[in-house]
């Protein structure tokens, strides 16, 4: 019977047809190879300015100012030495402080707020969300004048805490929105199961919800850090010498030293490096955050 022979037949590919599967699988591979080429070309194109910045930072000025850009050269650390000896560290400390403290503050305020807006919906959820986003739409320039004057009168100019407050307000709307979308992802059954197991709200929050939302919190924190570290407008207007941050340093470095390509490339590399590295390392979180948890 045919079926009995099926069972006793040799498994796998027959000798005669051995060539065929290889042919078909080759077609699959060339397809992915073309996309690969396109992908890499585009990737390198987009990355190129950053790459060139790093390459330039290891050149001497004479090597940087050549008619034909030099790719082969002997690298030097002299530009970096100049950058690091220009009193960089206080700026870094200020940036770090403002970034970390404001992000922590944002998380502290946004998490319960997002929780209230998602898992325990309040009557005016949409209006509140609208309000938060609308604060981001109001041009910062409109608010800067009174903020500057108020800070001046309260002797809070050039004070790192002023920056912290401003950065918190700057990132809060996005944080609330992002966290809310992460909270919405928590399956309702999880909460019901915790309720059946007798857990009070606070414990449900910490032991059930937070672990599920943890990647989302990390993503939000990362986005806040990126925006705070890179922020320039408030920093340049509110700070002077004590509380100045890295972006201010960069601009200051150029105006005092002038536009020397290799040097400013080194300065720019140092300034941008922390956030770029953080973004690379926590890429998945970044992508999640930016897609508002839409990506699985």
């Amino acid at each position, binding site marked *: 019977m045919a079926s009995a022979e099926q069972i006793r037949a040799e498994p796998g590919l027959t000798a005669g047809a051995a060539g065929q599967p290889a042919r078909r699988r080759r077609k699959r591979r060339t397809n*992915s*190879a073309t996309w*690969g080429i*396109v992908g*890499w070309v*585009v*990737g*390198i194109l*987009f*990355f190129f*300015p950053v790459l*060139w910045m790093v390459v*330039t930072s290891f050149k001497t000025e004479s090597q*940087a*100012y050549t008619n034909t*850009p030099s790719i082969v050269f002997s690298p030097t650390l002299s530009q970096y030495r100049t950058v690091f000896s220009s009193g960089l560290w206080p700026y870094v400390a200020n940036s770090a402080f403002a970034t970390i403290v404001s992000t922590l503050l944002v998380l502290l*305020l946004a998490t*319960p*707020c997002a929780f*209230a807006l998602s898992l*325990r919906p*309040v009557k005016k959820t949409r209006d*509140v*969300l609208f309000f*938060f*986003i*609308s604060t981001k739409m*109001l*041009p910062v*320039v*409109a*608010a*800067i*004048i*009174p903020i500057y004057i108020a800070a001046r009168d309260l002797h809070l100019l050039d004070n790192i805490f002023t920056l912290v407050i401003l950065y*918190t*307000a700057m990132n*809060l709307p996005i944080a*609330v929105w992002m966290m809310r979308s992460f909270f*919405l992802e928590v399956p309702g059954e999880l909460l019901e199961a915790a309720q059946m197991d007798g857990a009070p709200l606070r414990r449900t929050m910490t032991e059930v919800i937070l672990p599920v939302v943890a990647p989302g919190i990390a993503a939000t924190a990362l986005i806040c850090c990126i925006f705070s*570290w*890179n922020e*320039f*407008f408030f920093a340049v*207007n509110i700070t002077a010498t004590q509380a100045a941050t890295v*972006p201010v340093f*960069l601009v200051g470095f150029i105006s005092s030293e002038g536009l020397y*390509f290799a040097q400013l*490339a080194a300065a*720019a590399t140092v300034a*941008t490096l922390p*956030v770029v590295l*953080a*973004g*690379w390392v926590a*890429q998945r979180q970044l992508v999640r955050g930016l897609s*508002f948890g*839409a*990506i*699985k």
Partner: protein
Amino acid sequence: MTAIAPTVTSAQPARARPDRRRQGWARRGPLLPALVFTIIVTQLPFVVTLWYSLRSWSLVRPGSQHFVGLTNYADVFKDSQFRQTAINTVIMTGGTVLIAMVIGVALALVLDRKFLGRGVVRTLLITPFLVMPVGAALLWKTTMLDPTFGIVNFVLRPFGIGHFDWISRFPLESVMIEMIWQWTPFMMLLVLAGLQSQPKDILEAASCDGARPLQIFRELTLPHLRRYIELGVVLGAIYVVNDFDAVYMMTQGGPGISSANLPYYIYQRAFLGFQVGQAAAMGVVVVVATIIVATFALRLIFKTFSGTEQAA
């Protein structure tokens, strides 16, 4: 008996009411700190800006401020430079957002395919978004677009374009290119999320139905991506319209005001010209305009995103 019954019935509702009220506050409670903080830090200054806009005040002459009513506003509307920068802002924002979105969609389509080193390419592609805006602006101004030593001119030399000063000749466009470079990754990631959320069996069904890849993209993928594109455009516009760093670093608004956008122009008035009253009035005008545009835009996002919640 009749005496007892009313007290029993009246006691119960009294006990129920405070419970409900307490529950209401328990729900609203977590919301409040963030809300109050935001109101104080963002709304108060705006109210003060409104107040300043009704006064004439120059920071260089302290004590000179006095009430002038709507004069500042009249000046603003008469100011041709304000009009010009407003137009610049619209061009810059609209152009950047739209072009970044188109490129973003294309890049997302590429990243949606499997190929060797896809993760690395993604890392490379998100980098522009991470770079400090002032740093990025600086980069583009010097190593990229410099007439003599910039890479762009080097690459274009074989095509006959040699020593070309992009930043002086095309200031607005140069700033836009920098902004597009920075914001494309954001658009790309949003669209990629959209692409990956599309169920694969729908694409297979379309293939069985005889649709070619381009048709599938047009008929099925694009409609699905609509909400992601809308979100990207609105969110991107919010950030780009306020972008100050690029203009400050690359062109200082020049030559003249050909590349100045509203944030930079107002900044010039306030901190370089010390004209607080006028700057404030401009700020208010910009705010009102933004609110009008934003109301329409927000209604859009909410429609698309409450759709998500229903489907979920």
